[in-house]
Structures are given as C-alpha cells and as structure tokens.
C-alpha cells in the first residue's frame, strides 16, 4: 500500500461537524496520509456562547497519525468515513463540573463519524487522586463516557479495586465496575 508521508507538524481544530481543516488531509481511495505531531481539539456545541471561542471539551495529541478515508455508496446515502490511527497518544478531557481527565496510551483510533476515541496499550487515566490503568478504553464524546471491556485497576487514595470492565460517567461522576474485587476505604 502506498503511503503519503507528510513530515509536517499538523494542528487540526476539529469541530462537530469536523471543520474544513481536515480537507487538506483527504486521501486517494484506499490510501492513507501520515501526519506527525497531530494535535486536535474537540469543542462541544454550546449555543449560549454563540460564535465566540468556546472552552474545548477535549484536546488530544498523537506523535504519529495515519488518516484513512473511505467513500462509497450505501443503500440510501453516500458513506464517507474518516479514521485516524494514532501512536503515542496523550490528551485531556476537560470537566465542566468535575475534574479534568488526563489520558495516555501507546496507540489509539479516532473515528470522526462515530465521534469516538479508542485508546489501546498501557492506558493510564488520571483525574485528581484517581488513577485507572487498563489496556483499552473508548471515549464517547457526545455522551461524555469512558467505556472499557478490558481488565482494569482503579486506585484512589487507599482504595484499590480491580474489575473485568468499567464505565465512567463523567456527568454523574460515577464509575461502574463489572465483577470487581478490592477494598474501598472510608476517609480517616
């Protein structure tokens, strides 16, 4: 497969829907574009702020990114999907009423159509004193939830829990763990 290697530092500002900044990275059919130092910012729709600069919902950075684009015809509409595979990913999901979440992983995938980011490989999520370690997690931007079907270790102060999978609902400030064991400590 032929690859277009662009040795540039790309700064993309992504909005919902994705801004025209992505257009420069459109690829010939079946090929990918490689970007170095890709940084992208996600901005939540917030009509109360009109067209003024809004507080970002999240900001991610990848050491390397490959953009894959697929265009085709579906049953009743044209299909156009854009997926970025990411390497050396780090980022922050900003909190409205809760603390920010810092994320780090070996690699990841950003699906522009689904508006999701999946992180894989030595994933570390940190928020305040809470630390979560797992092998994969997906952030659903619109729902503002983090979901993982991989084993997880959660630490918060003296509290330490392991589980087979988990979901973090940031709006409700809750973590739901499946098949968990461990200790939850009360405050001294």
């Amino acid at each position: 497969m032929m690859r277009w290697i662009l040795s540039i530092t790309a700064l993309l500002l992504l909005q919902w829907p994705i801004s025209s900044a992505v257009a420069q990275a459109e690829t010939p059919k079946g090929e990918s574009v490689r970007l170095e130092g890709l940084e992208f910012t996600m901005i939540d729709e917030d009509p109360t702020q009109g067209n003024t600069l809004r507080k970002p919902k999240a900001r991610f950075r990848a050491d390397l990114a490959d953009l894959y684009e697929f265009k085709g015809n579906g049953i009743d509409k044209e299909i156009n999907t854009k997926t970025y595979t990411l390497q050396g990913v780090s980022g922050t999901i900003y909190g409205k009423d809760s603390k920010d979440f810092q994320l780090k992983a070996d690699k990841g995938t950003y699906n522009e159509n689904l508006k999701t980011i999946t992180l894989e490989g030595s994933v570390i999520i940190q928020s305040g004193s809470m630390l979560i370690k797992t092998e994969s997690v997906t952030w659903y931007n619109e729902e503002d939830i983090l979901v993982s079907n991989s084993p997880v270790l959660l630490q918060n102060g003296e509290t330490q829990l392991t589980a087979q999978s988990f979901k973090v609902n940031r709006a409700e400030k809750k973590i739901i763990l499946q098949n968990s064991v461990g200790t939850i400590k009360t405050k001294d």
Partner: protein
Amino acid sequence: MKKYIIASAILFLVSTSTTAQIKMNRDSITGLEIIKSEETSITFENEIEYITKGTVVLLMKEEKDNLTLVTDRLTCTYDDSPDRMPVKLIMNGNVTITNAEITISSETCEIDINKNIAIFDGNVRYKLKGDLEAEGSSSQVTINMGKDGGIKLKKNKNMKFKFSDKK
C-alpha cells in the same frame, strides 16, 4: 441442658458480654472489602452507590468485629459532613450477615450506623453463638449495636426460638 421456648410475645434479650453481638459505630468502620460483586457503582469520591450480587466485608478497627455481608443489592448513603461518612447500609434480597458470633439471614436489612441499629425484615433466621446459644426465626429482628446491645424479635405466629446453654 436444653430449653425450647415457643414465643408468643415480643421477646427482648439483653446482651451480656458472653452473648452474640454486632458491634458497630461510625468511628469503627474503616472500609469495605469486596470479595465478589457482579456490578459496583462508586463515585469519584469513593462513595458506594450500589453493589449487586455481592459478598463484602465491612472492615472495622477491631478485626474481630468485621462483618460479612451477602446480598443481591447493597446501597449506601452518606452524611453531608466534609468526611462524607456512611450513614446507612441498605440491603435487599437474600441477605446474610455474619460475624464470629452471629449469623442472620433475611429478605432485607437496614443498618443505621448513627443510631447503632440493624433491622432485618422478612423471613428472618438467626443463629447466635457464645456461651448462650440461640437460633430461631421471626418476621422482623432488630439488633441494637450500641453499648447496651440487645436483640428484639417481632411477634409472629410462626415465630420459633430455641436456645441452649452450653454450661
């Protein structure tokens, strides 16, 4: 010598140092160990919202006072103090509570940590160990977990109570 009593009224057994007790107050609880849980929901501040199909151990400062709780669903409420201390433990479905001296099973149980009271409801079966052993069933059992700890059994036509003095 064994004695068998079929109770027809509310009984109140005043605990002594030799009879079974559940000891608990808000200062004695240090945490909760999850041995098994199908689903656990906790807040970012380590507060338990619920635990389903769980076996958990309520950890006390005195290890011998640790209490094992088995239930279909455990929920917990907290006070508004800065320390956010647990106030109530509410268990629903197939409840069994065990410590070194006592085993009680019921359909539901509510432990009020501030009032030092545990109320077991629905098909309650209990077994108390110690010098004075007792076992039986009732529709409701209330255990006072304070200094003057006692066990109160609600009147029930099917109520049975049996105790044996090992001496």
